[in-house]
Each structure stands twice: as C-alpha cells, then as structure tokens.
C-alpha cells in the first residue's frame, strides 16, 4: 500500500513523500496497536461478561460454576477442533493462563467481604476448591488434545455430549432448601421446588460450539487462536440473545484492521439507541398488558383477550428485536458486523417468509445442521416429496420449539408452526400449478394484504402456546378469544 501511494506522489517532492511514508507507517503501527488493544479488550470483557451477566441461582456457588463451565467448554471444543501448532504455542499458553488467572482472580474475590460479589451475584466458592477445579480443567484439556488430535470424526461425540447437556439444562430439576445458601439458618428446610437451571447464554454458546464441531468434522473450520475462538463464542453483545454468527464470518471482522470511523460510530450508536428504545420503552410498556398466565385466567371473554394477545405479539417482537439491535449496534462500535436476526417479520405475506425473517440466525442454524442434511438424505431414497416435507418441517419446528424449553407448550408451538408451514407449502404447490404469477397481478396487492393479515394472526395464535406455561391455560385462553367462558 505504501509503495502504491509513493508511485502516485510527484517525484519533485522527495522530502514530502518521505514524511508521508513516515506518517503512513505511524498510521499502520497505530492501527495494528489499536486492533490488538481492541481484540484484547473484547476478549477480557467477554470473559468477564459471562460471570457479570449470570443471574443468581438458588443453588449455592452455581452462579460461579456455570460461567466457569462455559469457559471450560469453549477451551475443550477449541482443543478438540484445532490442529496442534507449535508456532502458536506461546500465544495459546498466554491466553490459557489469562483465562485461568481470571477464573482464579474471581474466585479469590471471595476472600474479601467487600469485593466478594463484585463479579458474581453470590460469594464465590473457597479459593482452594477453585484452584483444584482449574487444575482439573487443565488436565481435561490435555486429555482432549490427546484423544481428538487428528481425529475430526470424533468431534461427533462432543456434539452429542453438548446436546445431552442442553437437554439436562432445560429439564425441571428439584431444588431442595438444603441446596440454597440460606439453609444455614436453624429453620427446617422448605419442601423441594422445581426449576430449570438459569445458565446464562448456554443455548447460544452450545449452538456456536456445535457449529464449530460440525464444521471441523466437514473439514471447513478455519484455523484460529484460542483467544479468537473464545471471543467468538462468548462475544458479550451477543451472549444473551444472539444472533448466532458463523465463525468464519466473525473472524473476518475480528482480524480486519480496526480503525475508528464515523460511519461505524454513527450506525452502531443508532442501532444501539433503537434497540434501547424498542426494549426498554416499547416492549417494557407493552409487558404490562401482554398475555401471561395470570392475565389469561383473569380476563373476560371477548375484546380484552384480543388486546392481551396483540400486546404479547408486539411485545415479544420489540423485546427480542430490541436486544438484537443492541447487540448489532454494540458489535458495530467494535468493528464487528453481526448478522441481522429480524427483517420485518409481521409484514410477510406467508409463513415461509415469516420464518425467513424471524430469528433468522437460529432458523439458518437448524437448516444447515438438521433440515438440509435430513432432506438431502431422504431425497436420495424413493420417498414422496410431500412426506419428506412433512417429516423434515415437523421435526425441525419441534426442535426449534424445544430449544426454547422442554415443555409441552413449546412443543405445541413448534408443531403449530410446522403444520402452518406444511399447509402453506401444499397451497403454494396447488396454486402455482393452476394460477400463473401474471394471472394474479391485478389482485396482487389484495392477496398480499390478505396474506399479511392471515400470517400475522396465525403467528399471534401460536404465541398463546409460547406465552403460557401449560396446555389447560392455553385452551382456556383460546376459548376466551372467541367469546366462550
């Protein structure tokens, strides 16, 4: 670049060109330094965010162990998927040391009463236990390197292990009073209650790790440092609610020279403000009247039930897309262009297009690692296409439903959308064969508008399953929507 700029300079000004080259060199060094500082800052902030954003848990010390387990899983998957590069050993050891140091440092905060809860919600466990756990983590990583080096097919074991862990996390577990930190009081332990484990961002972390493992098995995973991989998986703007980026795309931005520019600053700031407004003004205001278990049983049949339903439909959109806007805006400020997750989903004329524009990165993840391979495999056999579409769409949507939680209502929400997608696919097939695209041109805007209204209401009815906790309450609310007690 310097050479090409020199060529453009007039030869009659050697001193000026010399100064210009020196200036360019300074700019290059500054940009490299800035990129390095940016990467280090993103890495440390993201690792700390895993602890800082973890909610309090009813089981003692779990708010320390869960984030620590997230970090260990990232390191384990990195060890299982990356080739052993001696030339990068120093950098790897420094990064691993930094991660271990941060974990030990957070654990050591428990020694002081003033600083014990600066990072975690509750005091961390005994520092000796933390040190033993870090040593155990190091041994695990060494074992993983030995077992997985040169065996990409073995990464499938880790995929199944992560899926099993994801299922376990989403199950309802009995939590007895003896597990709670306040159990040291003299009062008898309360009866056990059931709850899922609130593991911050684990659904997203697991899906990014599975993405890396599958790409490794396919031989498509790029070579990257531990620091780059850790930053990708626990990137702090996207840890709570996505989007689920692809690692090769993320690395492209992370490795690009970082230079502050006004357009990134303005666009990032704009998206951040839009996200804050959507989430904390619109969504939080709508939450007051949005459908929930209590309101569903209290409301009278008729108009008010519809208000609850519409409020929930818009609340969930503004809440989720607001989080996405904040994540994209924050990422942009640091030079990372996270993928879009929403594209005006409530204005789509059919359910297929709705699912191309709602939680797009999750839908694309399922298409890449489940729907497309399954469809490909079934197409190789002599099975009727409608049956393949039914099986692949139903199971995909069922899995997307269960990804949100292992309940009957999430399963029904998935099946509801699967049936809608199947009906739309059959209708499209029927209509295409009988009505050409041009034939409908005069009535196109009418059919488009009708499609938007119909699709929105199909999605809104689906939210009844999603918003409420059990089938009985959902059926009661459906009755109230249509004027029945």
């Amino acid at each position: 670049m310097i050479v090409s700029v020199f060529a453009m300079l007039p030869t009659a000004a050697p001193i000026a060109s010399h100064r210009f080259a020196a200036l360019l060199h300074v700019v290059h060094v500054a940009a490299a330094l800035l990129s390095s500082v940016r990467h280090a800052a993103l890495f440390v902030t993201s690792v700390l965010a895993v602890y800082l954003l973890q909610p309090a848990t009813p089981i003692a010390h779990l708010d320390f162990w869960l984030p620590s387990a997230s970090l260990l899983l990232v390191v384990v998957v990195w060890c299982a998927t990356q080739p052993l590069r001696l030339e990068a050993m120093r950098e790897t050891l420094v990064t691993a040391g930094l991660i271990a140091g941060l974990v030990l440092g957070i654990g050591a905060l428990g020694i002081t009463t003033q600083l014990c809860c600066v990072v975690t919600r509750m005091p961390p466990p005994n520092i000796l236990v933390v040190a033993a756990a870090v040593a155990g983590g190091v041994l695990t990583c060494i074992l993983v390197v030995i077992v997985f080096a040169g065996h990409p097919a073995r990464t499938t074991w880790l995929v199944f292990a992560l899926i099993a862990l994801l299922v376990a996390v989403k199950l309802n577990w009995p939590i007895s009073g003896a597990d709670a930190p306040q159990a040291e009081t003299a009062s008898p332990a309360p009866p056990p209650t059931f709850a899922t484990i609130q593991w911050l961002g684990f659904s997203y972390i697991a899906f990014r790790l599975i993405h890396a493992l599958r790409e490794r098995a396919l031989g498509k995973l790029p070579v990257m440092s531990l620091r780059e991989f850790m930053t990708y998986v626990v990137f702090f703007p996207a840890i709570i609610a996505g989007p689920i980026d692809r690692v090769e795309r993320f690395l492209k931005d992370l490795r690009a020279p970082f230079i502050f520019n006004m357009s990134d600053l303005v666009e990032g700031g704009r998206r951040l403000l839009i996200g804050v407004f959507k989430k904390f003004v619109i969504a939080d205001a709508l939450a007051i009247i949005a459908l929930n278990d209590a309101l569903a049983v209290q409301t009278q049949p008729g108009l008010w039930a519809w208000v609850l339903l519409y409020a929930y439909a818009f609340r969930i959109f503004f809440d989720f897309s607001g989080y996405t806007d904040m994540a994209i805006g924050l990422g942009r400020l640091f030079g990372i262009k996270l993928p879009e997750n929403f594209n005006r989903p409530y204005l789509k004329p059919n359910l297929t297009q709705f699912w191309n524009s709602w939680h797009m990165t999750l839908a694309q993840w399922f298409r890449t690692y489940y729907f497309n391979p399954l469809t490909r495999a079934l197409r190789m056999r002599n099975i009727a296409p409608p049956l393949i579409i039914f099986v692949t769409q139903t199971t995909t949507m069922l899995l997307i439903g269960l990804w949100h939680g292992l309940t009957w209502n999430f399963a029904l929400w998935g099946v509801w959308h699967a049936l809608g997608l199947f009906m739309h696919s059959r209708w499209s097939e029927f209509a295409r064969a009988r009505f050409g695209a041009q034939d409908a041109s005069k009535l196109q805007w009418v059919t488009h508008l009708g499609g938007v209204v119909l699709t929105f209401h199909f999605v809104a009815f689906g939210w009844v399953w999603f918003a409420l906790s059990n089938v009985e309450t959902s059926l009661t609310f459906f009755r109230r929507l249509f004027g029945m007690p």
Partner: protein
Amino acid sequence: MNSNDITHTLSTYVTTQILKQPKRILKGDEPLISSGLIDSFHLVDLGLFIEDKFGVRIEDSELNADTFDTLDQLVVLIQSRQ
C-alpha cells in the same frame, strides 16, 4: 458450458420442476430465496440438481440468500467452482 447455457439450464429447472410454471420467464436478477419463490425444501432439491448437472457441491450452510439469491449470482458461484 458458458454462463448463458448455465442460466438457461437453471431457469428451465426452476420454472418447470419447482414453480411448475413452464411458461414463466425468470429474470437473472429476480430474487428467488428472499422473495419466498423457492422454499427450504426446493432449495435442497436445487442444490442436488446443481451437484448432479454441473458437478459442483453447494454446502448445506450455503443454501441461503446470503450466498446466492438470483440466477445471476448462482451462475457466478457455479462457474467459480468448476
């Protein structure tokens, strides 16, 4: 096979096998995926057809509007891998 031949082969496949509208003329820059014209199932079918016809593999992760959304973009992708 030049780009015109590839475009013609792809266009014929999409209009006859996927859209079931053989008389329809697809423009090279007409959005296929983002417009909902081709759904997820038929996208896999299109990928299998391309593999079979042109000997070019399109990965499961590439079957989306970000990788290609029009016939023109698909032709460029196929030619870059042949």
